[in-house]
Structures are given as structure tokens and as C-alpha cells.
């Protein structure tokens, strides 16, 4: 009993230092100048455009990585082509990549001084220091999330119900929509939420490829960084609080999806 209490106390203390105190201080700080002060900070044009850009990038990332992630997970889980092991390993690579490195890597391939980058630029597509590059960076760091969530889930579920659908005459396409997708919906929801969280919060990779132009390529996290560097803690705090509120919703959604018994960490 004594030991259990000591253990609990230790866990609580660690929690307090690591998560609780910082979270509370931030909300408190954001509201220190009253609700009006908070809104005045958030509604500054730079802040608004930064938040808008962040949400746009997140939406695009979700739109591209969700379907591609599902396809990749299906291919890996069902071992449906030779060399799936290679794909499986490559998918994990972004996990080991520091965001800054991810940004640098993209810069080296799609930057203005490279073959591909110059070619694209000549055809009127500016990748780096523009929206496409920022989306690309976010795609890179979030790609494993969906795949890593779904592969174990798909393997655990097995193929029986799909096979049943086939013997009943359903095509591969129909089987996916009617049988597979409904079965993985909570896992998919969980990984989508993780993707949103990561995309919205991505900083290092986007910092490198964006050029960080205020009002043009400045995302919400870049804005927070800039404001902190300029010692404008109040502005940083306000935008952070908005992001944290979104995170709060994300957190609740995560619990909902996990509560359905299928969600796991990435």
C-alpha cells in the first residue's frame, strides 16, 4: 500500500511538472489581458493568415495522405506485391527523420538550385518557399501515421470477412467500401486525427521549406516561434492557445476513437 502511494505520488508529480503546470500557465497567460486582449491578439491580420494557412495545409495533407495511406496499408498488410517489405521499411523512415532534416531533404531535391526544382520553376511551379513545398514537407512527416495505425489493425482483422464478401460475388472495390472500410473506420479516424494534430503542429520541416514570409508562408507554429523569438510572448501565447484548443478537441476525438477499442498509438 505504501509503495503504491509513493508510486502514485511520483507519477502525479511528473505529470504536474511535465504537463499540468505548463498547460495551465499557458491558458492563464492567454487570458491575463482579459478575453478582449486575447481576441485582439488572435485577430491580428498576421495571426489570422497564419492560422488560415495552417488549416489549409492540414486539409490538403489529410486529403492526400489518408487515401494513399490506406492503399499503402492494404498493400503491406496483405503482402500483395513483391517487395512489400521494402515499402514497409521506407514508410518508417520519416519517423527517424528530424523535421529539420526532412525540410533539408526536400530542399535538396525540389529547391530552386536543383535540376527538378529548376525544371518545375521554368514551368511556372514554385515548390520551395511556397505552399506546395510546405504541403510536401507536411506530407512527408505525417505519412507513416496512417500506415502504422492501419497495418496491424488490418492484420489482426484478417481476411475472412473479405473472403466471405468475395464468395458472395462482391468485387474487390465493393468489398473495400462495404466490408473493409467500415471495419477499420475507428482506426482510420484515429490516424486521421493524429495526422491533423501532426500537420497542424508541424514546425521544423515547414520552417526550412517555407522561407517564413509573414502573411504569405507563415503558418501558425512559425508565428508562435517568431513571436517568442521577438519576445512578444502575449502574441505567441494567444495563437498557441488557439492551437491548444484545437488540440483539446483532437484529444477528445482520440479518446473517442480509442474507446472503440481499435485505436493505438502510432
Amino acid at each position, binding site marked *: 500500500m505504501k509503495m503504491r502511494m509513493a508510486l502514485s505520488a511520483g507519477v502525479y508529480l511528473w505529470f504536474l511538472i511535465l504537463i499540468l503546470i505548463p498547460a495551465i500557465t499557458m491558458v492563464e497567460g492567454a487570458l491575463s489581458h482579459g478575453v478582449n486582449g486575447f481576441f485582439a491578439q488572435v485577430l491580428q491580420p498576421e495571426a489570422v493568415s497564419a492560422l488560415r494557412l495552417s488549416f489549409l495545409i492540414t486539409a490538403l495533407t489529410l486529403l492526400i495522405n489518408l487515401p494513399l495511406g490506406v492503399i499503402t496499408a492494404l498493400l503491406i498488410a496483405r503482402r500483395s506485391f513483391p517487395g512489400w517489405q521494402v515499402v514497409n521499411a521506407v514508410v518508417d523512415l520519416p519517423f527517424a527523420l528530424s523535421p529539420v532534416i526532412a525540410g533539408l531533404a526536400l530542399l535538396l531535391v525540389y529547391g530552386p538550385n536543383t535540376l527538378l526544382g529548376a525544371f518545375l520553376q521554368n514551368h511556372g511551379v514554385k515548390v520551395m518557399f511556397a505552399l506546395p513545398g510546405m504541403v510536401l514537407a507536411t506530407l512527408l512527416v505525417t505519412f507513416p501515421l496512417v500506415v502504422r495505425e492501419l497495418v496491424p489493425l488490418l492484420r489482426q482483422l484478417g481476411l*475472412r*470477412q473479405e*473472403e*466471405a*464478401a*468475395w*464468395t*458472395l*460475388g*462482391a*468485387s474487390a472495390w*465493393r468489398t473495400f467500401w*462495404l*466490408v473493409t472500410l*467500415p*471495419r477499420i473506420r475507428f482506426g482510420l479516424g484515429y490516424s486521421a486525427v493524429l495526422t491533423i494534430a501532426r500537420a497542424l503542429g508541424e514546425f521544423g520541416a515547414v520552417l526550412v521549406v517555407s522561407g517564413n514570409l509573414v502573411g504569405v508562408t507563415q503558418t501558425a507554429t512559425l508565428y508562435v516561434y517568431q513571436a517568442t523569438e521577438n519576445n512578444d510572448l502575449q502574441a505567441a501565447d494567444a495563437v498557441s492557445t488557439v492551437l491548444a484548443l484545437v488540440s483539446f478537441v483532437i484529444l477528445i476525438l482520440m479518446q473517442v476513437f480509442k474507446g472503440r477499442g481499435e485505436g493505438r498509438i502510432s
Partner: protein
Amino acid sequence: MTIQVTNLVKRFASGTAALQDVSFSVREGEMIGLLGPSGSGKTTLLRMIAGLDRQTAGEIRIRGQVVDNLPAQRRGVGFVFQNYALFQHMTVFSNIAFGLRVKRLGKREIQDRVMRLLRLVRLEGYEDRYPHQLSGGQAQRVALARALAPEPSVLLLDEPFAAVDTKIRKELRRWVRQIHDEIGITSIFVTHDQEEALEIADRVLVMHQGRVEQFATPQEVWERPLSPFVAGFLGDVNEGAATVRDRQVRLWGHTFPAGEFADGERVRVFVRPSDIELGPAAPDAVPAQVREAVWAGERTQVRVQLADQSTLQVSLPSDRSVDLTPGQSVSMCIRKFQIFAEA
């Protein structure tokens, strides 16, 4: 011939052979039991007929048509999976209607047919339940109704009764047989339970290590097994080995005629416990001593020891008036036996 399988071979990527040169054919409306120990290749065979696995060599015909290149979707085969594989996120109604919706039948027709099937499997009123709200036996019946809904030409059942408990299992298999007779659909079911196969199949296909050991009616398989494996696999059996001398086999104090076996050949003798009779000790009969007697309802299982120290299992009707106290001397008589060459 509804199903014709010719020289079917299946080797896995690892090189192990799951099926070796399997051939047989099934007549219209027959119910076939695929019987064998686990790992004998029976489920693999079933999955290949359904188009869920592909054979390495050989040919499968369904109603005369070669189906080797047809995917499962287009073979017109109904399949009942071992753990039913019901769609967990759909109601009983949607599960049964699935194959009909895939066929794009009209709403009214789907409704009618599902209701008819629910009546057939005696689950009226369950259409709005989800699979997790069903008992094992009910889920089994839904799986059957779902497989039957698109009116397949063949029904395949993979260990259909394995997951329900013993009492329901007996009921269920008689009932499946009854449904089979009602619609007259050609069916193959996989089982490792010999009692199940013998009870409801028209013919039994006994498999062992990827080969067909015997394909015959239950009675024939039981009474005239073609191989030592079949003799040993169907029910309990006493087994002994001996050498043929003077065109006779001497074993357990008995003398068996050696039949086609020549002198000096090693043979194995199989005797079922129910083919041994015990009586009061008599001077001219083979003597034995009761070691143990276990009363099990209608029959009593007795273990007797012979003069040569070997023991035999005997199954007697419990009403037989023989003194079975352990240590009691009795006489023994073997009514039926099988002799095979030693492999």
C-alpha cells in the same frame, strides 16, 4: 457431375505440399464430408474449390465448366466459414442481403428472399440484430442463410460445427442435413470429427497428408477401410503387429486367416472395441482378465489383459450380464478385424 477435381496439387511457397494429386468427383445433390486430421489439406482443398486459393497444378470443374481462372466472385459457390465471418457491422438482414444487393436485385425481391431464408433457418424476428448479439448456433444459421441467399450451385462449409458446443452441434448438423435435403444443393463440408462425417454425409472423403485415403459411403468406410490410416482414424481401435505363418496371423491368443498375405510378411491387425465380445470364463475360449471397467451410459468401456500381457480395449453394451469386477477372469472373442500390410 457437379464438382470434378482432377490431379489437384498445391505446394506452398515454402515448398511443403498441402495437396498431392487429389482427384474425385461429386454428383448433383450429394452431401460430401471431407474428413481428416488437422493439417491433412482438407480446408486448402475447400478454399481452392471456392477460388480463395489457387492450385499449383490440376483442374477443377463446377457443372462441367473449368473454373481455374475464375475468381471467387464468379464461381457461384456458397461458402460458410469456420468462425462464420459474419459482417460485424451489419445487421442479420444486411448480412443475408449482401449477396443479393451485389447482384443488384430489386428491393422488394431482396426483402422477400431474406425473409424466406430467415424462415428457413428459423430466425424470424432476428433481422435487426447484430452478429455480436447472436449465440454461436444462431450465428451459424445466419452464415448458412447468407451463403444460400445468392442461390449458389455448390455449398461449401469449413468446419461448420466446430465453434458450437456439443449438444447444439448434434442438433445443428441434423438440421443442416435436413436443409440440404430440402433445397437439394450439392454440398461439401470439412470436419475432423468422424462421427459428424459418418452421420450426415452421403459419402466421406478421408484425407491424410494431402492425399485421398478413401472416398466411399460412411458404411463402407467404417466396415471396409482401405488403409491402416482410415482404420485407425475412424473411432477407437486396437492395433497389433505380427508376422504371417502358415497363412495365418497369430495375435492376442487368436488366429486370424492371413487372406492375401504371404508367409513371412509383417502385417498390422485392427480390431474395434465394439467388435470384441466378452463372456464368462470357459476352458476352450481365449482367456482374459478384466483390468478396468468404466460405465458410460449405454456402453461400458472395458480394458482387459491377455495371457501375453497385452491389453485390449473392449466396448460392451451395458446390459450384458458379464462380471466386470477388476481381476475377474473372462473369455474373449473377436468378431471382426482388418489386416493391412505393415508400411
